[in-house]
């Protein structure tokens, strides 16, 4: 047995045994966390080994004696496994202190069980070697995460979120099924190898179907509607795993499909790039308009999936244009962003989880000043915010830098490639600026200033099992940001198994780029030390006094006067009004002594707003017309089955 399956077995055991231990709440959590964490750690070691030696693992089992379950780990799968096991390892440790309600012991046990299933199924998805295996793992993944989303099922909005997620993941799966069905219809085998022989137009249809299916999992606009509902509903460490790694299996699917189809025309890159630009910009615009911390983070997943797709799209354009270096820059940048996003997004979700645990609210405008009492949470959240905004010297910058470099290679090309690369670069720049605006809002409103409500006062940040993962993730943000070499080489190796139709490309260029990033970061730190020294010198022996904030002449300031998240984002949202319609509800102020008033704003997601009227209702209408089939008479149902068998016997 390979270490990979052993680690999955340990994870499953870690999830399974606690189901019988619910009377000993602490023991149950300990066993579960220990089992799952050990399994993840082993899996992480194994995935790292696969990446290092690039030996592929093959394993095959018979399933129902009709299909074979076939697993293979190539370097692309290994790269995703690294992200999956790393984030899951930390998330489950976080869960030890996060799941702190003994009265909900049974539910907690079930949560850990489905969590272990989710980790295993994610790992199996990226290792699946044929369609049957893939869909089996994919469905387990969707279902286990569905049960994790409805953890708090007493709240109607959580049930609604679960329902929405269920519908989306299954409609998405249906698209993937139809893509696989088309492939099977032409190649006659369940393996992926036959896909390369498909006729060119069919390849495009297969890719578009698969892109919609995988895109709905990844959260590509406009298939992201479930995401901002499901992430806030799930417990925070589950959101971290779902947003950090689970949605990345959609990205994996898109990359794998592109690879097995082996069609290197421009149109694939154009589709992916445009989808990436739209998701990226709209994702961050909607994020700016959110009032709920976890919903805001969920929209940032849409944004980051957009950035990843921009990278992949540029890579595909590079392949189509016969530019291997551009292709690898785009793909490797996108792939590294997969890892980076899984790190900083899970860090941010864990920070948000800590805030919600300790204050009891996730409303951004009710918080404030938390960093004074939550030092570690605040600082790690700040690091995560800087990283997700793509700022140096943190990891988000590295992957965006590589995607930019790919884009610049693209603008040197002819017209279509030039135009798409230009748009890609401009959207990346705009996304970067908007993300900075959004996270300066979150840090500024949630962690800085003065508490805006009683809930945010006198909080603490107890729970070492919650703090430890955040520290590790923040460290990883800085490590990758300053020494990206090994991580870029990992990503380049992952790209190698896409078989993009060229030989080995020399690594010197990439090593030079990572060396530059390291150098630039060290220069920055060097200058920072100089400035620090200067400041220390200037403050030697100076009198420091403390007093209230200068109120510009106003002597009775209250915390209610602070700028809120809504007011901070208002002018930017005004700019994006056509794509982000804003509903405001506030009665006009009247009279000399105005009465108490209120203000409420809501930014509409146009996908959510129009999906109902454009897609759901027509489909519903068609099904309504077919309702007579579903009459409830059991005899006729048996007749249907008989009829189906007869038809199949005669015509197939």
């Amino acid at each position: 047995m390979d270490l990979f399956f052993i680690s999955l077995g340990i994870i499953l055991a870690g999830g399974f045994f606690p189901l019988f231990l619910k009377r000993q709440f602490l023991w149950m959590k300990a066993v579960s966390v220990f089992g799952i964490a050990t399994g993840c750690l082993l899996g992480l070691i194994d995935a790292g080994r696969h990446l290092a030696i690039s030996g592929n693992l093959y394993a095959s089992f018979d399933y129902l004696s009709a299909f074979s379950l076939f697993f293979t780990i190539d370097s692309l799968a290994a790269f995703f496994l690294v992200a999956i096991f790393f984030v899951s390892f930390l998330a489950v440790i976080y869960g030890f202190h996060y799941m702190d309600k003994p009265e909900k012991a049974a539910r907690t046990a079930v949560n850990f069980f489905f969590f272990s299933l989710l980790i295993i199924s994610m790992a199996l998805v990226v290792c699946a070697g044929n369609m049957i295996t893939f869909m089996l793992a994919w469905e387990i993944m969707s279902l286990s995460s569905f049960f994790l989303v409805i953890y708090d099922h007493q709240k109607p909005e959580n049930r609604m979120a679960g329902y929405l997620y269920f519908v989306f993941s299954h409609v998405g799966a249906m698209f993937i099924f139809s893509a696989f069905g088309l492939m099977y219809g032409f190649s006659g085998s369940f393996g992926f190898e036959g896909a390369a022989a498909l006729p060119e137009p069919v390849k495009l249809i297969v890719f578009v179907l698969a892109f919609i299916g995988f895109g709905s999992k990844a959260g590509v606009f406009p298939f992201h509607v479930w995401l901002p509902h499901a992430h806030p509903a799930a417990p925070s460490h589950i959101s971290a795993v779902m947003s950090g790694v689970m949605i990345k299996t959609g990205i994996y699917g898109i990359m794998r499909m592109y690879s097995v189809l082996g069609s290197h025309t421009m149109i694939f890159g154009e589709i992916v790039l445009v989808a990436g630009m739209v998701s990226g910009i709209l994702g961050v615009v909607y994020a700016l308009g959110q009032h709920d911390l976890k919903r805001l983070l969920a929209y940032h997943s849409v944004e980051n999936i957009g950035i990843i797709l921009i990278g992949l799209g540029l890579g595909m354009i590079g392949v189509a244009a016969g530019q291997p270096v551009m292709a690898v820059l785009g793909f490797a940048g996108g792939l590294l962003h997969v890892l980076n996003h899984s790190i900083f997004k899970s860090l941010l979700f864990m920070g948000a989880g800590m805030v919600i645990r300790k204050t009891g609210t996730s409303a951004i405008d009710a918080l404030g000043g938390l960093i004074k009492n939550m030092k570690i949470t605040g600082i790690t959240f700040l690091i995560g915010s800087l990283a997700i905004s793509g700022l140096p010297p943190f990891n988000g910058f590295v992957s965006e830098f590589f995607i930019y470099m790919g884009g610049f290679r693209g603008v040197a090309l002819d017209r279509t490639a030039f135009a798409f690369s230009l748009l890609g670069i401009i959207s990346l720049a705009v996304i970067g600026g908007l993300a900075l605006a959004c996270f300066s809002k979150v840090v500024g409103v949630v962690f800085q200033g003065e508490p805006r409500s009683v809930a945010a006062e006198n909080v603490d940040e107890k729970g070492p099992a919650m703090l430890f993962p955040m520290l590790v993730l923040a460290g990883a943000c800085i490590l990758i940001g300053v020494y990206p070499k090994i991580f870029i080489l990992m990503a380049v190796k992952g790209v190698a198994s896409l078989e993009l139709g060229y030989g080995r490309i020399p690594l010197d260029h990439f090593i030079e780029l990572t060396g530059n990033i390291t150098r630039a970061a060290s220069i920055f730190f060097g200058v920072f030390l100089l400035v620090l020294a200067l400041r220390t010198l200037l403050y030697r022996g100076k009198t420091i006094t403390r007093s209230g904030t200068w109120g510009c002449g106003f002597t009775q300031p209250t915390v209610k006067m602070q700028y809120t998240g809504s007011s901070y984002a208002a002018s930017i949202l005004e700019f994006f009004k056509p794509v982000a319609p804003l509903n405001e509800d506030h009665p006009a102020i009247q009279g000399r002594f105005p009465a108490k008033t209120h203000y409420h704003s809501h930014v509409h997601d146009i996908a959510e707003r129009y999906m109902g009227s454009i897609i759901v209702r027509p489909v519903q209408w068609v099904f309504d017309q077919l309702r007579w089939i579903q009459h409830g008479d059991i005899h006729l149902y048996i007749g249907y089955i008989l009829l189906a068998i007869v038809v199949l016997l005669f015509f197939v």
Partner: protein
Amino acid sequence: MIKSIIFWLLAMLLAPFFSAVILKVKAFFGGKKGPPLLINYYTLIKLFKKGSVYSTSTTFIFKMGPMVSLCSAVTVLLFLPIAGQAPVFSFNGDVIFILYLMGLGRFFTIAAAMDTASPFEGMGAAREAYFPIICEATMFTILVLFYKLTGELSLAGYFSGSQPAELWHAAGAPLLFVIMAFFIILLTENSRVPVDDPATHLELTMIHEVMVLDHSGPDLGLIELGSFIKLFFFSTFVARLICPFDMGNPILNTAMFGVALLLVYVAAGITESVMARYRMDRVPQFVLTSFALAFFATVITLEFVK
């Protein structure tokens, strides 16, 4: 290398002087004598001698703000070819690093402002987060154009030696748009009229000045120094483009560069003297003009450069 470092130090030393030129020009237009040209040095020395008052609402981030913003300004200056000299550091892709590093400085300026819990500073912070987004789009569009023309992704590839002349040679007409766009960015990024009024007395209408209201003493001095350097940084772009010649003689080059730089500062001063600040909701349109210019320049260059 040594020479580059000397120029870098000189640039930091002289940046406050150039900023005073703007004040002098404004005074001239107002029919006043104006402050002495060394006023900024006096201000800095005065600030450095003082102690500080910190708001009880603030945390360590408030102290980080001035340091990081100065640090990012000083670091980006290391990559800038001053007076045509080779920069201290340069690598393929350094422009991307530079633009994002300025983003880091901006993040900490905003964070320091949000730290004070002051409604006015929040207001300024929101504006500071908003307008540069458009500037970034413009900058990257110009980068695409320059990359197309030179095949380089570093400031050294655009502004050192005879490179600006090469740019003019490759695409003269579009470069006029680029200069305009750069000038608009210069005004926006450095909080000058018509985007922001550094001399106004009403906090509600400020952007940058309101964000640093609570900073005092050496901290405020560091911020001021950082903004002088930042203005110098952007002015160099414009100066090198309006005066692209390479005389072959370092002294002549430096003198010519100094004159061009003065011209840019005078132009900024004249703009401030003859224009009023735009209403806040008009500012995005003004900044978008730069993007339109840059985008147009880039697209038409596609026809010239193959």
